[in-house]
């Protein structure tokens, strides 16, 4: 008998298609559930007689924790495998969402809706899913896998947001939150096929050099290309968060109806799915830094064109479609660059730090949007800032060396 005939067949739940579907559903739920929380601002605030600021602070904390906890969750994923971290993340996510429903004081709301959910989102995010994909999928399919995972996350956002809006009137906000908590528990089921990548004790993948996590983080931060990539992703966060939060009031100010603004914002979600998927395909065929630079240039061009033209339904829709196509299309390329430069062993941790920079950018996008509006009575300064930052990001990606970092390259036998 040959070795091959003795080998056990792959169980169905470890088949490539099952792994991809499972990972995509995890990304979908992770991104989707959080996109519904906006619908609870009014009902929760009114039910407890709290000012809206209380709920807003919980959501702000959630975003902050999401950013801070991502590299930590990544480190656990690199050490103990993505599936285990996803399962832990789902438990945090579900507990936070369910307990948020019962929060009787602002402090409880901040602890549950802010901190618990923030940690849960970080530990069950698509970054952790993509780390598993990177280790399981052959290198030639890797960028495609990053693309489909990002597209699935985008799709989750697009389909859960309207669902959340219907759940509240259908079941009341309390039960709607419990339903969403149950949805986040589904992550546990869909994380199981990713056990196929169970890198317990952080096994060294073939072709990658032996290095501790601490040394890997130190080496990455000593790498110019990694720092440039991190700086560029700050801009991504700045632009997206500013548009998400401040575009609807900007449109209202320019006479666009609430309904049309809603349709225009949905267009971002829909075209984001297409953009993310194709960016994964492009990343698999060409040098990743070039399309990444082009994306930032196109974002700047879209912003400048939008604010220079008279604001109408047509220009609004053109803008949101363009931004949708460019929205998360940066993710598969950024993740791909991290993998090219540092390999797959510590990729969740190293991508986590890049993502932290994205979240810091998000904070500034949201905060400066409001701060400068109050100061100048107009969003124009922040739009121009967003466009200028886009050009900065385009430039910083160009010198990135798209090859394995010297410290991470395995010495070749003489």
């Amino acid at each position, binding site marked *: 008998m040959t070795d091959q005939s003795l080998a056990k067949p*792959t169980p169905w739940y*470890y*088949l*490539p*298609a099952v792994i*991809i*579907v499972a990972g*995509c559903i995890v990304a*979908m739920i992770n991104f989707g559930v959080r996109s519904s929380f906006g*619908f609870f601002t*009014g*009902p929760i605030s009114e039910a407890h007689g709290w000012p809206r600021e209380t709920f807003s602070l919980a959501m702000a904390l959630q975003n902050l924790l999401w950013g801070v906890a991502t590299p930590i969750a990544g480190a656990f994923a690199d050490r103990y495998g993505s599936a285990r971290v996803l399962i832990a993340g789902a438990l945090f996510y579900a507990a936070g969402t369910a307990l948020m429903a019962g929060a009787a004081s602002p402090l409880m709301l901040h602890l549950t809706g802010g901190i618990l959910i923030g940690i849960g989102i970080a530990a069950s995010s698509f970054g952790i899913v993509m780390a598993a994909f990177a280790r*399981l*999928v*052959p290198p030639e*399919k890797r960028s*495609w*896998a990053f693309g*489909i995972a990002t*597209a699935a996350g985008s*799709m989750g956002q697009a*389909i859960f947001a*309207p*669902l959340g*809006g*219907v*759940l*509240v*009137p*259908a*079941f009341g906000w309390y039960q709607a939150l419990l339903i969403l908590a149950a949805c986040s528990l589904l992550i546990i089921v869909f994380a199981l096929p990713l056990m*196929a990548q169970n890198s317990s004790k952080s096994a060294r993948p073939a072709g990658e050099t032996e290095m501790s996590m601490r040394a890997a983080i130190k080496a990455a931060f000593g790498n110019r290309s990694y720092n440039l990539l991190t700086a560029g992703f700050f801009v991504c966060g700045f632009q997206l968060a500013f548009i998400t939060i401040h575009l609807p009031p900007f449109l209202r100010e320019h006479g666009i*109806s609430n*309904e*049309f603004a*809603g*349709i225009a914002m949905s267009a971002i979600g829909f075209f984001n*799915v297409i953009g993310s*998927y194709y960016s994964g395909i492009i990343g698999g065929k060409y040098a990743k830094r070039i399309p990444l630079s082009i994306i930032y240039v196109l974002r700047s061009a879209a912003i400048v064109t939008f604010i220079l033209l008279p604001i109408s339904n047509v220009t609004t829709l053109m803008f949101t479609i363009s931004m949708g196509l460019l929205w998360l299309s940066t993710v598969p390329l950024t993740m791909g660059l991290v993998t090219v430069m540092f390999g797959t062993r510590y990729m969740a941790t190293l991508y986590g730090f890049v993502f932290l920079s994205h979240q810091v950018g998000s904070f500034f996008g949201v905060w400066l949007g409001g701060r400068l509006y109050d100061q100048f009575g107009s969003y124009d300064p922040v739009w121009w800032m967003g466009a200028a930052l886009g050009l900065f990001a385009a430039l910083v990606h160009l010198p990135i060396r798209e090859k394995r970092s010297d410290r991470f390259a395995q010495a070749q036998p003489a």
Partner: protein
Amino acid sequence: MGDWPGHRFALAFGGIVLLVWLVVMAVTMRLAALPPEAPGPLLAVFEPGMNEDEMFARIIAAKGKPVRGTALGFVWIVQGEEAGLAGRLEAEGAIGTYSELPFNASLAGCFAFADAKLAEAFSVRP
């Protein structure tokens, strides 16, 4: 491990997700419809293509106050504090009534229309 899937797989997966979403949305929308005794403010969905004056007249006949139309011409925001407004609007030909917030009017319009057509298609009445 076997072969890794490709674009057709991605397309099929996206299609299945959309299909499942449509079913879940349709069921949830039906549950979200207001009971007949509900007062305003609410979203009233009429048959697409119905004349604006006719919709206006029907809202008045149901003892409601038309606040404004929405981006979808056949969805109206209706005010009225008297209980039973939702039921009266349906008796006047509205195909669905929904709570005004946090509903998206376009969503309510599309799903109420689809729901009404489905109910009509599977109706056992002659």
